[in-house]
Structures are given as C-alpha cells and as structure tokens.
C-alpha cells in the first residue's frame, strides 16, 4: 500500500506539472524549435539606441547544434527567443534552422480566430510557408490581389491561411495582406487620409461611419485602407462604432470638440454612447461620445457604470478575388451571406463580466453541493435514528413479554441478556 501511495504521489506531481501546461488558457506565444546551424555558432544581438538604430552583436555565444525555442516576432532578419534558456536573445535568422519543417495549428500559442477574408497586397506576391517563420519552407506563393481565408494567428505577424486548397502560414509584416473586419469604424474627430507617399489626399469628417475598408497589419503605423467619398487611401486610426448604454454615478460635464464645457449632466442619468476611447498613457481619463448631446464625457473609475455595449457590425464585406493595385485603388467585395452570419456576434457581456459570472456560477454550484451533502447526510442520520428506535421498541416489547411471563424466574437476567444482544444488532443496522 505504501508503494502504491508513493507511485500515486509521483504520478500526481507529474500530472500537476503537465496540467500547468494544459490549455485552460492559451500560452502567450507560438514557439518553435530551432538549432544553431552556423558552424561557427551564433551570437545574441541587442538593439542599439545610439545614433544608428540597429542590432549589434553581444558577447553571448551559443555553440553550433544547440537546440532551443524561438518566436518569429522581430523585424528584418532576426528571430528572438522566448524560453528561459536564452531569454531575450535575438538571433540572426541565417544562424539558425528549424528542427522540423512543419508547424501545426494545434501547437501552444496558436490562437483560433473567427474566419476572415484577406487580400494579398504585396505586389510581388506573398509566400505561404509550412510554419510561422521565414525559416520554414515555402508551400506556394500567392499572387497580389488574391483572396485568402484566415483561420488562426500566432504572435504579432503570422497567420494561418487557406488559398486555392493549400494551407500554410503567411506573414502580415509590412502590410503584405489586409483583411476584412466586421466592425463599423467611426471617426471621433477629423481624420486624414494618406496616399502611399504619406501625402494627405483627403479627410474623413468627425462622427462619420466607415464600412468600406480593410485592416492592415504593420504598415508604417497605418491601421486601415479606406474608401470614403471616392477617396481611397490609408488612415492611422479609427474607433469602433458601438451602441452602448451607461449610467452616471456622479454629476459630470459634457465637453465639445474644443474641450470646452457645453453643459452638465446629473448623477443617475442613463445615456447612450457611440464611441468609447480609452485614455492613453499620461491621460487621466477615458473619453465617451454621447450622440444625443453631441458632446464628450471625460470619465475615470467610478464616474459611470456600464449597462451594456454592442459593437456595430458591417452587413457586407469588401474582399473578393480580383486584381488589386494600391495605386489604382480598386477594391470591391461581398462576403457571402453564410459567412456574414458566422461573423456576426452581439456581445451582451464583456469578457470581464463573463469571467465573473462564471466564478459566481461556480460559487453557487459549490454552495448547492454543500447543502445537498449536508441534506443527504442528515437524511442518513434520520434513517439510522428510526432503525435505532425500532430496535429499542422491539427490546421494549421483549422486556414486557418477559415481565408478563410468571413462569420465568430470572427475569432481570434475561432482560439484561436481551439488551446485550441488541447492541451488535444496532451496530449492524447503523452500518
């Protein structure tokens, strides 16, 4: 028994060790295994912030053949580590090779996303690879303007996509592709539209809805490629249009575009809002736009309580297969009806609310289970009490019969013997 206990404890510890790696929540990054393939070994590089911003070689040396894990999340031809072995060490991509030339979407760090359509923007086409790094071999090259379907993401730039029956990984670095997003964009102020040469070619007025756009990844800071009033170009940032409701917990001021106080609103008022802008670093408050008052609230913790928010979704998409040229600005699309239904979702609860509700659910279940355990146990005790009473009653009857029987001489002895006999019987019943 002791041996079994030791084995079980060992199994438990092993189980715990692996359980902490199991997927209750996904690990942060998608690492893949590499080895140093440069016969002279590899060095860690560090980012230099002197006059020239570039990577410089450090003294940290890793010998040829050494195996470790990396993520491909660094610009240019450098790859960084994430594991503890060589933490925050950036390698030259040419110094290392992947151990296995494939990377499954089931690996840690790969996140499944709602299917979106994408379009290749890279004029020379985009390589689809066997894993999320340029170190993996090429599956196929997708020509510019072609439509892809994106199903997973890994890290900042890499996405798993399908094109023409082939599946593999593509990098979105430098806006090699854009993708269709289901949200309605909204301008909280006047927003400039830029051409490829960073020249302003137009402006989106404040509080304008934009549905003709594709979202970009890592393209000179631009977030979107939009079409507005016949003008097609890049914008840095747009907000999402929401349909939200809040309740004021304090008296607050309403501000206009120039940050001047327009009017006051009172504690307890319920207002609809259409934009919520989180305060950036250094800003003390968040900004909320109230369309009915045509003004903004400046809110901090405790000023308002949320009554719910729905992000407005587009009713059709803007990507389909076809020739796409950034200069000609030719984008037209329609997402088929089925895909629209799959992409639509009304978020009644925020993520935080979902977690808290789940914890509350767990607490309620736990309390219910405790109550039921106590009830089951008390009904068990009731049953045992009844059995004991039955036995006592039987004993009482037996004693009366002995008492009535005049022919019995040693009545007290018999009665006490009967009592002794009952004890094991009681014990058996109680068991």
């Amino acid at each position, binding site marked *: 028994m002791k041996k079994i*206990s030791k084995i*079980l*404890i060992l*199994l*438990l510890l092993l*189980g*715990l060790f*692996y*359980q*902490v790696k*199991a*997927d*209750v*929540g*996904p*690990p*942060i990054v998608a690492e893949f295994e590499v080895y140093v393939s440069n016969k002279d070994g590899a060095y860690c590089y560090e980012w230099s912030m002197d006059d020239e911003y570039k990577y410089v070689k450090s003294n940290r040396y890793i010998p040829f053949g050494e195996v470790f894990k990396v993520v491909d999340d660094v610009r240019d031809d450098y790859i960084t580590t994430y594991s503890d072995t060589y933490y925050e060490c950036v390698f030259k991509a040419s110094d290392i090779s992947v151990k296995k030339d494939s990377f499954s979407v089931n690996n840690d760090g790969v996140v499944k996303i709602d299917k979106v359509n994408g379009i290749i923007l890279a004029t020379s086409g985009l390589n689809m690879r066997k894993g999320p790094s340029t170190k993996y071999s090429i599956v196929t090259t997708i020509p510019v303007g072609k439509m892809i379907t994106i199903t997973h993401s890994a890290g900042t730039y890499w996405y798993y996509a399908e094109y023409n029956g082939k599946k593999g990984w593509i990098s979105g670095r430098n806006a090699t592709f854009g993708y269709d997003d289901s949200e309605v964009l909204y301008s909280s102020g006047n927003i400039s539209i830029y051409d490829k040469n960073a020249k302003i070619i137009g402006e989106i007025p404040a509080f304008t809805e934009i549905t003709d756009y594709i979202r970009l990844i890592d393209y000179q800071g631009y977030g979107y490629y939009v079409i507005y009033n016949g003008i097609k170009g890049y914008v840095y940032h747009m907000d999402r249009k929401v349909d939200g409701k809040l309740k004021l917990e304090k008296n607050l001021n309403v501000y206009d575009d120039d940050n001047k106080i327009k009017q006051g609103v009172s504690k307890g008022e319920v207002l609809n809002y259409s934009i919520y802008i989180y305060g950036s670093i250094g800003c003390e408050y968040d900004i909320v736009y109230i369309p009915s008052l045509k003004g903004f609230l400046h809110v901090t913790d405790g000023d308002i309580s949320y009554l719910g928010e729905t992000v407005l979704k587009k009713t059709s998409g803007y990507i389909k297969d076809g020739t796409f040229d950034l200069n000609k600005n030719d984008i037209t699309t329609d997402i088929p009806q089925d895909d629209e239904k799959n992409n639509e979702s009304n*978020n009644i609860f925020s*993520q*935080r609310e*979902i*977690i*808290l*509700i*789940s*914890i509350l*659910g*767990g*607490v309620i*279940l*736990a309390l*219910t*289970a*405790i109550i*039921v*355990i106590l009830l*089951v*146990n008390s009904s*068990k005790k009731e049953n045992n009490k009844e059995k004991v009473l039955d036995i006592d009653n039987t004993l009482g009857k037996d004693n009366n019969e002995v008492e009535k029987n005049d022919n019995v001489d040693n009545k007290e002895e018999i009665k006490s013997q009967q009592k002794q006999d009952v004890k094991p019987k009681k014990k058996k019943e109680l*068991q």
Partner: protein
Amino acid sequence: MQVSDLPLIMIRSLCITLIIEILIAFIFKYRHKDLIYVLLVNIMTNPLLNSITVYINYYYGLKARNISLIILEIGALLVEGVIYQKYLDNRKINGYLLSLILNIFSFTVGIIINNIF
C-alpha cells in the same frame, strides 16, 4: 480559448471529471450514496477551480495562473478528502487517498484530452 467559451468549457470539464471519477470509484467498489458524494464533491470544487484559474490567467498572466492552479488543486484535494473521510460508507480506502487517486485519474485524462484536441 476565447473567454466567451468559458461557461461551456467549465461544463465540459465538469462532465468529463464526473464521468472519470465516478467510473474509477465504481471500479474501487464504491456504490450508491458514496457515488453521490463523489458527484457532489466534484460539483463543489471543479467549476469554481476552473473559473478562478481563468480569471487569474486573464488578469495576471500564465505564471500566476500556474502557481494558483497548484495551490487550488491541493486545496481541492484536501477538501474532497475531508468529505470522503467523513461521509463515505465504504471505509476500505482512506478518504484523502481516495481523493488523490480520483484526481490523478481525472488529471491524466484531462491532459490527454487537452493535447489531442
């Protein structure tokens, strides 16, 4: 995993745990009310444990989640052990040991399922 999937994940995890632990308890010749206790004890600990670890993962990251998972699992083991020790009719196996055995089995199967799917 999406946070919006959390309630479904909790239900799925509870169902799988219940199936495994009741099966193992049955193999160890626990019957009737003892199996009900196994059921109730897991309803008491499993959903709460899963939701708390997701909360910690969401707000404090993976390392914090891993540490809290160990602590919570040990706590759950002890709580289950107390209940088994106090209330089970079948006294062949010590309550704490039974809790350990059942949880090891459900852990192991959980890991296998997580890695396959």
